[in-house]
């Protein structure tokens, strides 16, 4: 195989998930041997799905994979590894209680008659570490080493299994800037040793710094592949995002009222002491839809959990309706007129085995007229349910049937119906359209419109730029836990204006 040939080629990969979402829409990709090849795209563009197909975690409906020129069938992760394709997932697959060396050799341990040969293990580990100049403390337990080093272990794991192609999925999302630097050095070394690196990222600055070839993925297709040096970050950002004119661009209403939410210098460190929210401040008023744009995992989930009262260990002040929520319980916060539409519907939004009725009343069951003295008022609840089924067009055959019977779109309608049909001051909508088809998305947007008209303040946290532009009064962009842009006048703003901020290539200067 000569140097210019593709070591990995994907042809017309079609992947549709059981819920009907088309993740890969006849995507084709050629990866040249020995190159550092980046795949970029927004949330939901299909990059992770495509790599999951290559690493054997998903099976495509259609399409072919060619490895080293030959057509191959990859039915499970093991087959992928065997061929020499090593994937380093965004969330590491390491056993924390075992040492680095043990994690490295797991599944291929040296030793006779089933007995572990400790010396051999250590030797294998240090040999591979030296070979690729990737330093790791082989005797230490994984739980005692920082993220950056854990990632090195994952990379070595793949190399130990003779990977010729290394796929890194959002490799820098969990790293500090210094660790990122070291990762780049490692990648360069690996290339020198003949490995091919593919990495998925939304951080365009990094992509520009390290990759040689870049492919841009949008809505399940690869729409561009080219030399990284010949395309600017701005052009990348533009290609990643379709420019469309949103249908219902709101005319900015003058009816903006009192402040319902004030966040002041909010800082949050997670259990691993990483800074997830970095001094965030913003205000939200009645009648406003404040959009928070950003790629996944840039601090959104933490923000939502703080606002919902589930996370208490933060610095800074959060006030809802003028009241500091730090010492308020989740229930008390909701009593201030707050509703929350979670991103993870099945975990936080519904109780799958509970009935439709039970799921519908979780924010009302403790109040009159749902509760009448000691008793739950079943007939009132039933009437209420019928009302909601009608006004929100929820497809449900029997009210007592468990919610798991419903389709994804209907489950989201249940959540929206429940949250939006109470007197709200603040509605937190976190990825409300995720996983929904066009029809359902339109319904969701209409409902949020209605809420806005009822003088509710809406915090719309989304990675879908179309949605944000359609609904928001103003938009803040969140990147790496920081607000990097305040877009107050959306009149001439398009997706391509927002995406550079989301992708980390642009940041507003803060006036001092």
């Amino acid at each position: 195989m000569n140097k210019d040939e593709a070591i990995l080629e994907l042809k017309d990969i079609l992947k549709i998930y059981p819920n009907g979402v088309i993740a890969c829409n006849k995507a084709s990709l050629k990866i040249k041997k020995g190159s550092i090849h980046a795949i970029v795209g927004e949330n939901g563009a299909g990059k992770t799905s495509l790599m999951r197909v290559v690493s054997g975690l998903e099976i495509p409906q259609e399409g072919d994979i060619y490895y080293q020129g030959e057509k191959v069938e990859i039915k499970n992760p093991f087959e992928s590894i065997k061929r020499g394709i090593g994937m380093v997932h965004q969330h590491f697959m390491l056993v924390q209680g075992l040492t680095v060396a043990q994690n490295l050799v797991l599944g291929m341990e040296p030793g006779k008659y089933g007995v572990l040969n400790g010396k051999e293990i250590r030797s294998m580990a240090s040999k591979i570490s030296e070979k690729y100049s990737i330093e790791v403390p082989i005797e230490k337990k994984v739980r005692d080493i920082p993220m950056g080093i854990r990632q090195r272990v994952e990379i070595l794991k793949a190399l130990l299994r003779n990977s010729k192609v290394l796929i890194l999925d959002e490799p820098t999302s969990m790293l500090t800037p210094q660790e990122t630097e070291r990762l780049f050095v490692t990648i360069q070394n690996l290339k020198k040793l003949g490995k091919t690196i593919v990495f998925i990222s939304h951080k365009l600055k990094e992509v520009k710094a390290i990759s040689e070839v870049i492919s841009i993925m949008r809505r399940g297709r690869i729409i561009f592949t080219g030399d990284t040096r010949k395309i600017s970050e701005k052009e990348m950002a533009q290609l990643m995002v379709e420019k469309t004119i949103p249908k219902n661009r709101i005319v900015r209403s003058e009816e903006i009222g009192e402040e319902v939410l004030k966040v002041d210098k909010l800082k949050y460190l997670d259990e691993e002491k990483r800074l997830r929210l970095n001094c965030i401040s913003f205000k939200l008023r009645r009648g406003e839809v404040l959009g928070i744009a950003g790629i996944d995992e840039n601090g959104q989930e933490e923000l939502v959990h703080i606002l919902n009262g589930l996370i208490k260990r933060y610095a800074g002040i959060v006030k809802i309706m003028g009241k500091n929520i730090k010492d308020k319980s989740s229930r008390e916060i909701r009593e201030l007129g707050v509703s929350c539409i979670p991103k993870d519907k099945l975990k936080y939004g519904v109780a799958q085995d509970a009935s439709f009725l039970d799921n519908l009343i979780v924010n009302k069951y403790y109040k009159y007229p749902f509760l009448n003295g000691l008793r739950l008022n079943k007939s009132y609840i039933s009437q209420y349910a019928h009302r909601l089924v009608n006004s929100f067009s929820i497809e449900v055959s029997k009210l007592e049937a468990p919610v798991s019977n419903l389709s994804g779109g209907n489950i989201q309608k249940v959540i929206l119906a429940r949250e939006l049909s109470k007197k709200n001051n603040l509605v937190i909508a976190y990825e409300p359209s995720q996983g929904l088809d066009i029809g359902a998305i339109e319904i969701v947007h209409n409902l949020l419109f209605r809420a806005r008209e009822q003088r509710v303040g809406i915090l719309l946290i989304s990675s879908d730029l179309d949605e944000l532009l359609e609904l928001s009064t103003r938009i803040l962009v969140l990147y790496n836990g920081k607000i990097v842009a305040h877009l107050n006048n959306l009149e001439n703003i398009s997706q391509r204006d927002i995406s550079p901020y989301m992708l980390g290539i642009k940041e507003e200067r803060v006036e001092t």
Partner: protein
Amino acid sequence: MLKLIKYIDLIRIFIAILIGFILTIGIIYGVSEDASTTIWYFFLGPFSNISGMGNIFETATPLILTAVGTAIAFQAGLIYIGAGGAIFIGATMGTLIAIFSNAPTFIHIPFILLVALLAGAFIGYIPGYLRVKLRIHEFISSLMLNYIATFVGIYIIKYYARDMAAALLQSRELPKTAWFLRIIPGTRIHLGFILAIILSLLAYFFLYHTRWGYEIRMVGKNADFARFNGIDVNKVIVISTTLAGATAGIAGISEIMGIYHRFQWKALPCFSLEGILVVIIARNNPLLIIPVSFLIAYLKTGAQYAALIGDIPSEIVTIIISIIVFLVTAELFLEKWKQRLTFKEATKDELRS
């Protein structure tokens, strides 16, 4: 078709019980020398006289009481097995109070019940508290407390309430004012049975018609969902184990006041464990607990008859019940059937939308 899905759980239980019956007959045939007589006595013996039928009610009573309490904890998603300890300590404290106090029956009995309830509640509270504050799993803490309660209970009876005249360890007899009225002459069916039915109905009402029951059920179905939407999950956990203990305390003293009139146990009574099996078979539903308890009581009584006349040890019931439990809890038992029905129903939804 949809009705079928709702009742599929019931059908599963029914089939499991049917298999149990068939197995019972099979074992008797295989083992007994006079199979037909044994079978006759097993299945019809309990109905042959009034004392036999009474036995069914008497045996069912403590099962219902134990199961109802445990059901509340199970509905909250907790593996709480401390009913035995609560039964024991409730019975102990109740006995103690009964012996050392005096009052007319209509005051004495409620008072004794209250003491038993509080003792059970206290021992039920501990695993809940430990779970919430220190994340200690309730299975191990309630298991240890069972032992602790047993020893403490025996100690108290031995040194404070012992019947010195008797050879075996037992407490002094309870004063007549502390005896449960026997309702039906010719049997030992006592007020405790009425109490069991009432508590069972109350528990059903509590779980499905009050706000606290709703919270308990939601926590059991998805604790993350409950917490996210404002339910105080910690409070729910503590309340459910406390209630479980309280009810079990009543179960214990009820047996003393109704059947034995003195404390005689040297170890956790077998209904404490069987109560847990009843809950499992009845899928945590207080209303179902009543018929399931009767079923188990019927089987136990029948087995005793069969053991008297025939050559089958009564332990056959234990075997059958545990097999039924296995069948009922294997989620994938008949799961394929349920899935097919559910899938058909869900796609009907899709077609309509």
